[in-house]
């Protein structure tokens, strides 16, 4: 942990060396998700609600997913660039060091420019939390925290799977973006609105809905009960197959030799 913190500071320092470039990229990240936000606003300006959800309620979703994603991306960036690590042989060096591989890949790269998105998520939360009509209790505050934390762990698991694929293919697989970037893009609306089949898929196969849709129903008092409140915790089960797949990929790893 102490070592990770050290790496954390190192990365922070090195990125702060190029302040102009850094702030431009942060601004860019901010703008990208701001245009998504603007499109939601335009849609609600016209339709006022979707499947019973109002604008601030949808923003609660938007901010949750955005925050979860940007946290996962900020710290899990190493996995995003993992295919490159394999193809240039960097990973061979990782294997000979006496530390856990996941730890090393995590420490290999951290990207603080993603804070642009995080900042936006915080701003949106400050608007949506009072406006959404949620009657806040301690339980609900806990649920919201769980949504963000478990959400970022699920995204992290997806990055892990993406990286594990490259043990076999060397190249990164673009279709995984459907779940990572796609999860972020389409998670701006409650996953329930996409219809039953999609919802089932996002509950049982790739559990994005478990940290977004079901706990949202709990927050809005549409559903009660521990099952909905604790849904984000169930999504953590997804970490198991992701980790198993990573271990399996690792056991089959053949260096590229470069």
């Amino acid at each position, binding site marked *: 942990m102490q070592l990770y913190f050290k790496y954390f500071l190192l990365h922070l320092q090195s990125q702060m060396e190029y302040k102009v470039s850094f702030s431009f990229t942060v601004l860019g990240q901010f*703008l990208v998700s701001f245009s998504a936000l603007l499109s939601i606003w335009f*849609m609600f300006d016209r339709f006022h609600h979707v499947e019973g959800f109002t604008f601030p309620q949808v923003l609660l979703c938007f901010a949750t997913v955005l925050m979860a994603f940007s946290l996962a991306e900020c710290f899990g960036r190493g996995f995003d660039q993992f295919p490159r690590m394999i193809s240039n042989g960097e990973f061979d060096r990782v294997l000979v060091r006496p530390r856990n591989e996941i730890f090393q890949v995590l420490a290999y790269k951290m990207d603080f420019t993603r804070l642009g998105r995080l900042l936006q998520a915080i701003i949106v939360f400050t608007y949506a939390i009072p406006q959404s009509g949620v009657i806040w209790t301690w339980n609900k505050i806990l649920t919201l925290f769980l949504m963000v934390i478990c959400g970022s762990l699920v995204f992290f698991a997806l990055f892990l799977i993406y990286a594990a694929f490259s043990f076999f293919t060397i190249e990164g697989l673009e279709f995984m973006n459907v779940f990572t970037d796609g999860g972020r893009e389409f998670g701006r609306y409650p996953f329930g609105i996409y219809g039953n089949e999609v919802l089932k898929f996002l509950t049982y196969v790739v559990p994005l809905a478990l940290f977004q849709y079901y706990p949202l129903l709990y927050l809005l008092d549409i559903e009660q009960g521990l099952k909905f409140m604790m849904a984000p915790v169930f999504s953590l089960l997804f970490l198991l197959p992701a980790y198993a797949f990573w271990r399996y990929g690792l056991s089959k790893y053949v260096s590229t030799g470069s």
Partner: protein
Amino acid sequence: MSTYVALFRIRFTNSLQYRTAALAGLITQFAWGFMQILAFLAFYRSNPQAFPMEFSDTVSYIWLQQAFLALFMMWFYEREIFDTIESGTISYELVRPYELYNRWFCQSLANRLARAVLRCLPILIVALLVPEPIRLRLPASLGQFGLFIVSMFLGLGVVVAFSMLVYIASFFTLSSTGNRIIAAVLSDFLAGALIPLPFFPIGFRKLAELLPFAAMQNMPLRIYSGNISGREAFYGILFQASWLIILIVVGKLWQRQALKQVVVQGG
């Protein structure tokens, strides 16, 4: 002229090589289009009266957008051009016997077209086969289809001419990251890449429809389904052609000025 045709051919065949990448991209784009249509469907169910265009027009818009993504997305920049400008190898380019603007224009055109050729057919075929209401309709009429093709090429021209301005701007800023992102976000949004222009609030929409970004994907994708037809379509095409000419003229003038004061940094 033949020099540029040859350049175009080389770039085109070069880009056709990346077939596996295209296949992986296909799955992503298909899923993307599918989810987007489902989102619009939810809004449609919630309040059909507020829907500003026919639902089937919106469906066509989204499928075509995915099929021809490579033609219209602003963030498909030519990395190579930025590298040339930033690293100073531009000096080699300048001694070669062709007009730099035309060369870059050809290169971008060829790369975008090649990518689109690889990707569009499978997406279009699947989109024509999926069940209603998310199926892609055939074009409203043969004439409308002709207009769509013309409008699509003009739209592509406007996209490339606009991205030329972004390349030229990096002569002045050295690091292109900022310009690149801001230009891409702005133009994608105002071109209707996130939501089609008819979904904009009315005042905003009126403004957006005057800007060059409305001459990009907005026109062809709406002409295809007949959302813009007849006289309106003709005016639309005229609108695209005028922006294309304006952007090219501005680009050429600006580049000439940039090259006059270009400082190649040593090393």
